[in-house]
C-alpha cells in the first residue's frame, strides 16, 4: 500500500501548501465524496432557487424590473450548469446528480423553501439571500479544489451584481409610498432569520465543518461567516431605513462586531428535513418539469443519433 501512502502525502502537501487539487490528481475518496455532495447541493440550490424569484417574472411592476429579474434567473440556471460541470470533473454525471435531487437523496439550500409573497421579497432575496451566498462563496474562490474555486470566481462576480440590484430594488420601495415601504419592511421581517440560517448550524453542531476546514474546502466556520454577514448587512438596513427584526441587534464596541439573536436552528433542521413552507411544492415543480420534458430530451437524443448515422453513411458513400 506504499502507493496509496505516497498519494496521500502528495495530496496533503498540496492542500497544506494552499495549492489546488485538479481533477487528475489523487485525492482521498472522502474528499471526493464531500466535494461532490457540496458542489451538487450548491448546483441544486441554483436550480431550485429559480422558482421563488421566477414566481414574480410575470408580475414584475415595471419593464425594467422584469428585465433585471429575467436576467437574474437566467444567470442562476447558468450557475447551476457551471457547478454541475465542475462536479462532473469528479467522475459523476449531471443526470445522476439530478436524480439524487429528484429522489430527495441530496438537498438544496434551506432558504428556497420560503415563499415569495410580495414583490419586495424579490428585492429581499437579492439583498439578503444573495448577500449571504456571496459571504459564503467568496472564501470558496480559494477552495482547495481548482474547478470549484474557478466556478466560484465567475459566479461571485455575477452574484454581487445581483445583490446590488436587489438592494437598489428595495431602496426604490423605501423611497416610495407608505405602502411600498411597508412591503419592504414586511419582506425583511420574513427573510432575515431564514437568511441567517443559510450559514448552517453553529460550528459545534456542524457535521462537516472540521474536516472541510482541514481539507481547505471551507476557509471559515459557519459562525464566523454569519457574523461577517450581520456586520455587513446591519448598516445597509440603516441606509434603507428598515428595521432588522431583532431587538438584541446592536453594535458591540468591545468585540468590534454586532451582537444579534441566533436564528431558530430547530426550524432550520425542520426545513432541511423537508418540513418548510414550500419544500413539497418546490420539489413537485422541479420533478414535474423534468418528467414533462422527458419526451423532448428523448427527441433530441434520437435526432442526434439519426444525424450521426446519416453523417456516417454519407462518409461511407463518399
Amino acid at each position, binding site marked *: 500500500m506504499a502507493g496509496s501512502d505516497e498519494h496521500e502525502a502528495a495530496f496533503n502537501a498540496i492542500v497544506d501548501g494552499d495549492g489546488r487539487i485538479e481533477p487528475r490528481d489523487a485525492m482521498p475518496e472522502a474528499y471526493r465524496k464531500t466535494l461532490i455532495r457540496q458542489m451538487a447541493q450548491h448546483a441544486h440550490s441554483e436550480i431550485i432557487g429559480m422558482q421563488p424569484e421566477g414566481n414574480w417574472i410575470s408580475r414584475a411592476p415595471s419593464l425594467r424590473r422584469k428585465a433585471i429579474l429575467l436576467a437574474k434567473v437566467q444567470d442562476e440556471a447558468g450557475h447551476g450548469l457551471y457547478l454541475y460541470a465542475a462536479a462532473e470533473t469528479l467522475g459523476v454525471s449531471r443526470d445522476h446528480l439530478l436524480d439524487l435531487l429528484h429522489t430527495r437523496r441530496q438537498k438544496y439550500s434551506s432558504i428556497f423553501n420560503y415563499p415569495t409573497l410580495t414583490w419586495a421579497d424579490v428585492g429581499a432575496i437579492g439583498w439578503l439571500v444573495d448577500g449571504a451566498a456571496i459571504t459564503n462563496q467568496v472564501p470558496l474562490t480559494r477552495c482547495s479544489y481548482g474547478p470549484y474555486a474557478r466556478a466560484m470566481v465567475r459566479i461571485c462576480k455575477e452574484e454581487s451584481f445581483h445583490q446590488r440590484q436587489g438592494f437598489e430594488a428595495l431602496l426604490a420601495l423605501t423611497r416610495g409610498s407608505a405602502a411600498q415601504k411597508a412591503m419592504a419592511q414586511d419582506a425583511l421581517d420574513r427573510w432575515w432569520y431564514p437568511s441567517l440560517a443559510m450559514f448552517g448550524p453553529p460550528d459545534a453542531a456542524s457535521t462537516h465543518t472540521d474536516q472541510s476546514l482541514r481539507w481547505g474546502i471551507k476557509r471559515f466556520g459557519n459562525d464566523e461567516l454569519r457574523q461577517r454577514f450581520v456586520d455587513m448587512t446591519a448598516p445597509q438596513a440603516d441606509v434603507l431605513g428598515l428595521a432588522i427584526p431583532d431587538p438584541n441587534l446592536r453594535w458591540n464596541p468591545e468585540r468590534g462586531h454586532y451582537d444579534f439573536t441566533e436564528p431558530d436552528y430547530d426550524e432550520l433542521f425542520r426545513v432541511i428535513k423537508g418540513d418548510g413552507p414550500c419544500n413539497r411544492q418546490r420539489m413537485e*415543480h422541479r420533478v414535474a418539469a423534468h418528467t414533462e420534458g422527458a419526451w423532448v430530451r428523448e427527441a433530441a437524443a434520437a435526432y442526434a443519433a439519426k444525424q450521426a448515422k446519416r453523417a456516417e453513411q454519407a462518409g461511407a458513400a463518399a
Partner: protein
Amino acid sequence: MNEPLVDYSLRLGDDSLVLAQRLGEWVARAPELEEDVALANIALDLLGQARTLLTYAGQVEGAGRDEDALAYWRDDRDFRNVLLAELPNGDFAVTMARQLMVSAYQYELYDRLRASADETLAAIAGKAVKEVHYHRDHATQWVLRLGDGTDESRRRMVAGLEAVWPYTDELFDTDDVTDLLSTDAVAVDPASLRDPWRAYVGGVLAEAGLEPPDDVPARRGGRHGLHTEQLGYLLAEMQHLHRSHPGASW
C-alpha cells in the same frame, strides 16, 4: 403627432412584449437547464425590443406615456399584438412552433426595416435583427429535433403546428396604417414578407419531414385590439401589481 407611426411602433412592441411574457412562463419549468437559459434569453431580447418600441411610440405620441404607462395601463382592446404572440405555451412543441413562426416573420421584417426612412425604427431593427436571427435558429433546431426525433415528438410537433398555423396569416395583413407608412418607406409592407417567410418555414418543415398544415380559416383581429380570450388573463397577471400602486416608482 404621427398617429400611424405610433400605432405601427405599438404593434411591433406589443408582439415582442406579449411573447416575452409567454416565454417568461417557461422559466424554471423547461425540459432541460439549457432551455431554461435559452428561453429566458429569448424572452429578455424580446422584452428589450418591446421597451425601445414602446418608448418610441410614447415619444411620437407626445402625451407623456412611457414604456410602463403603455405596458401596464392599456386594456386588451388597446393592445395591438398579433394573436399568434398571445397563444398559450401549450407543450414544448406548441411553443417551438409558435416561436418558429414569429421569429421567421420578425427576421424578415427587421432585416428590411433596417432600411426604414425613420432613423429610430431603422436603429431598433438593426439591433433586433441580430437577436431574432438567433431566435429563429433556436426554434429551427428544435422543430427539426422534434419533427425528426421520436414518434411521440413527431406527433406532438404536428399537433403544435396545427395549433398555431391558423394564426400565421394575420402576420401579413395590410391596412391603412401599413399602406401609408410603407408608401413613405417608414414601415415594411407586411404582405411583402409572406413569400420569404413561407420559403424559410417551408424549408424547415421539409427538412424535418413535416407538411405545412392544410389551409384553414385564418384567425385575425389582434392589430385592431380584437384578441383571443387569453390576452385578458395575461394582462391581468402582468398588470396587477403596477395598477395596485398608481403613480408609484419601482
